[in-house]
């Protein structure tokens, strides 16, 4: 039985075809989900992909979270369905309250597109079991509003519970600091991705779906995320 993984398209979603390609590349079946449908088509997991839903004009993800399909995603996530938010998808998950905190304008004020080293801080979420703890992976990062912020209590909670899943690796590479900023975007604690308390909902700013083949990405390090969820779904 192949796992069926939903990929949502909002008006303005861009990386949906890439997310679908990544799902296919691990031999799972991508299922296209449309923002206006209050229907998850019986999928086993959902990916909320990157892009600029509704232009991101108000705040990234602010309009998308009200889409009918998101009501279903929130409901399914609360029941434990694996959900992955990438970039704009991460922003949407934060706006819709599935994940705490928020993503704001990069501290350097520019859109940043670069190959980014990350450290896998938690390899026990459904999306990261294929990685070794502490593994360093190279994945594209590309966004305008990628600076993760949360209040001190939330940060403490995330750190205390090991819910920081990915962190930007900023040591040792002087080129990372050329904007005078200590990370690609000034994210608190260099947070690149987090999980919910059960480790089933994960959001991250970098794009694992763009790192599935060294031909079109900097590495194939992103594949681990899709393989991980597959393991979880097949085992279930």
């Amino acid at each position, binding site marked *: 039985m192949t796992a069926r993984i939903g990929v949502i398209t909002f008006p303005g979603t861009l990386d949906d*075809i*890439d997310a679908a390609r990544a799902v296919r590349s691990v031999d799972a079946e991508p299922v296209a989900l449309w923002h206006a449908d209050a229907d998850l088509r019986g999928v086993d997991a959902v990916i909320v992909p990157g892009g*600029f839903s509704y*232009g991101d004009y108000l705040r990234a993800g602010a309009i998308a979270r009200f889409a009918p399909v998101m009501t279903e995603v929130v409901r399914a996530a609360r029941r434990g369905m694996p959900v992955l938010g990438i970039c704009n998808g991460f922003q949407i998950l934060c706006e819709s309250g599935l994940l705490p905190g928020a993503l704001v304008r990069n501290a350097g004020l520019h*859109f940043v*597109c670069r190959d980014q080293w990350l450290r896998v801080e938690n390899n026990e979420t459904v999306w990261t079991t294929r990685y070794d703890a502490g593994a360093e992976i190279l994945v594209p990062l*590309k966004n305008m509003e990628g600076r993760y912020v949360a209040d001190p209590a939330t940060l403490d909670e995330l750190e205390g519970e090991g819910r920081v899943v990915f962190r930007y690796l900023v040591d040792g590479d002087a080129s990372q600091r050329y904007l005078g900023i200590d990370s690609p975007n000034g994210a608190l604690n260099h947070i690149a991705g987090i999980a919910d308390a059960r480790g089933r909902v994960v959001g991250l700013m970098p794009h694992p779906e763009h790192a599935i083949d060294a*031909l*079109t990405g900097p590495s194939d390090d992103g594949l681990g995320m899709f393989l991980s969820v597959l393991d979880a779904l097949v085992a279930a």
Partner: protein
Amino acid sequence: MTSTQPALGGRIDTVEHAAATPDHPQPYRELGLKDDEYARIRDILGRRPTDAELAMYSVMWSEHCSYKSSKAHLRYFGETTTDEMRAKMLAGIGENAGVVDIGDGWAVTFKVESHNHPSYVEPHQGAATGVGGIVRDILAMGARPLAVLDPLRFGPADAPDTKRVLPGVVAGIGGYGNCLGLPNIGGEVVFDPSYAGNPLVNALCVGAMRVEDLHLAHASGVGNKVMLFGARTGLDGIGGVSVLASETFAGDEAGGGRKKLPSVQVGDPFTEKVLIECCLELFRSGLVVGIQDLGGAGLSCATSELASAGEGGMRVELDRVPLRAEGMTPAEILSSESQERMCAVVRPDDVEAFLRVCAKWDVIAVEIGEVTDTGRLQVHWHGETVVDVPPRTVAHEGPVYERPVERPADQDALVADGPERLARPSTPGELRETLLRMVASPNLASRRWVTEQYDRYVRGNTVLAQPADSGMVRIDEETGRGVAVATDCNGRYVKLDPYQGAQLALAEAYRNVAVTGAVPLAVTNCLNFGSPEDPGVMWQFQQAVRGLADGCRELGIPVTGGNVSFYNQTGGTAILPTPVVGVLGVIDDVRRRVPAGIGAEAGETLLLLGDTRDEFGGSEWAHVVHGHLGGRPPAVDLAREKLLAEVLVAGSRDGMVSAAHDLSEGGLAQALVEAALAGQTGCRVVLPADVDPFVWLFAESAGRALVAIPRSEELRFTDMCSARGLPWTRIGVVDPASKALEIQDVATVDLAELRAAWEGTLPALFD
């Protein structure tokens, strides 16, 4: 705001009224029409034009839309295109964009356009809407837009105004392109004082479709409906035409208030993204007979071009156009340049399905008219006729000028003032210092500050992007078939010799495509020049067109389209003549692409292909070190370029080349630095014993490339070069253990030091 406006009755200038009031004075001069042009319009119509007609003719007969100064010269492109060159061309000059057959049933379309002046006035929005416009051109061919490139030119890097213009332009291009989901795969950033008041913002878009899906802009089929869809129409970009409003309603609020309208448009990339997806779904569903984007000249252009390309007639109910501003007149609606709009011709039975697809994407769509066989474009406004013209006279039969052409009087002096007199570095210390200074100079420094603001990954098909000699995208995921695109132009070379300079631009773009392993196939151009009313500028233009066209014939690849931008000058001083040339190549399998970075395999040999001569006219060295421009540009040998390209492509096919980088501005030294930094690998270079190291390191002779060949392939590759008559020189080895560029007897520079020099410049200037 609503789409239905109150009937304005007698206040609108109708055809009937125009016929009855032949002596009514009209502000045609304010609209940019000459006396004889106005007389010709009266002649064509047999009466004075209405306000709306006058607005249409004036925008469509403008330099920008009618190519009145360039047409006579551009014909030369057609005249020099042979049948053989045409074989793969599915659409050429005259269509929205050129289309070439790249094999396997795929057609690729690409075009470059300028948005220079708006980008000076409002850098962010000017550049953003430039991207939006070129993407709609590609869409109007029936293609899915795949990638963009942005050739840019600015004033001096350290000029205060450049700090205003460049960051705004880059943010605008990134903001629009990123939000559209189009990877940016290349471009140029060039600084020169001549662009200070005239930055050049050119944007190129490439798209693909199945050959059978090619949509041309034809309004054929009497009775077919004309659909306007996308954004509402507002008062954008009608600065000039608001004169009409003030004439007609002298002193009234609408007219008076509009005189100062900014001609700046604000882009809405989200609307465009949705419009793209909507159009592609319409194409897929077979609901479109003809389609046209609304660019400059808005509805005037779209309706007259659609009508004259089809059955020859069209009726438009202008009061149905969804508006964003209140009280707009027919003239204003016809000339509005509001962005993110398209016009389609649809069979009556398909209108409902058409509207359904638009509704799915939340795209506003209305039927505004239909195709007729009257041979006339008739525009109605609340039941009255405000336009009744033969559409071809608007769209295609504008004035054509034979502007005076004259070689500038000071050209000889410029050429006579060669670089030979300039002091050259000679000691190792001087050469080392020159190398570092050159690498850090604004025109040679890393473009990362710019390109990092562009998404190069989106859509997951980008195989090569900055830094790379050309951008490359995969088109077919199954077979790996893809295309490579590069744009180039060295305005200093063109200034010294416009004919040869244009050929050098062509040669460089061609070479940039070939070094990646792709076969060059077709050419587009964006001809940025000063005022056509200056005979010296017209000479540059004429020479550049001839050089480019003759060059294309020699290389056997056709010019499929392009764009002309005149009047790029501040006061009496024109910009460097800048015919930006874009070359598109095809690669049957992107997996054999050749990157620029060395070190993929241990112990590669470094070869320099081609001949190096003492050529410094117009060079970056003369510019950076001496602020000098004079003499002759490097010699151009297109037969050699062709041979070099064949060798590079063959080398890629047979897996003999692990890296390749073409030589251009900054010469061999710059190529070595870039190849080493891109590959993060050091190398040892040994120049031939009997040569002048300065010349070998910094001369800008054309027709050269640096290649890295795996040791096991070296003999096979050099044998191939020798057999085909391509000169090669073994100049060193890649050294994975080394973290330095070591040029024997000249200098050793750590990669870290090189990187700091190369990458530090733009951030220091613009952060």
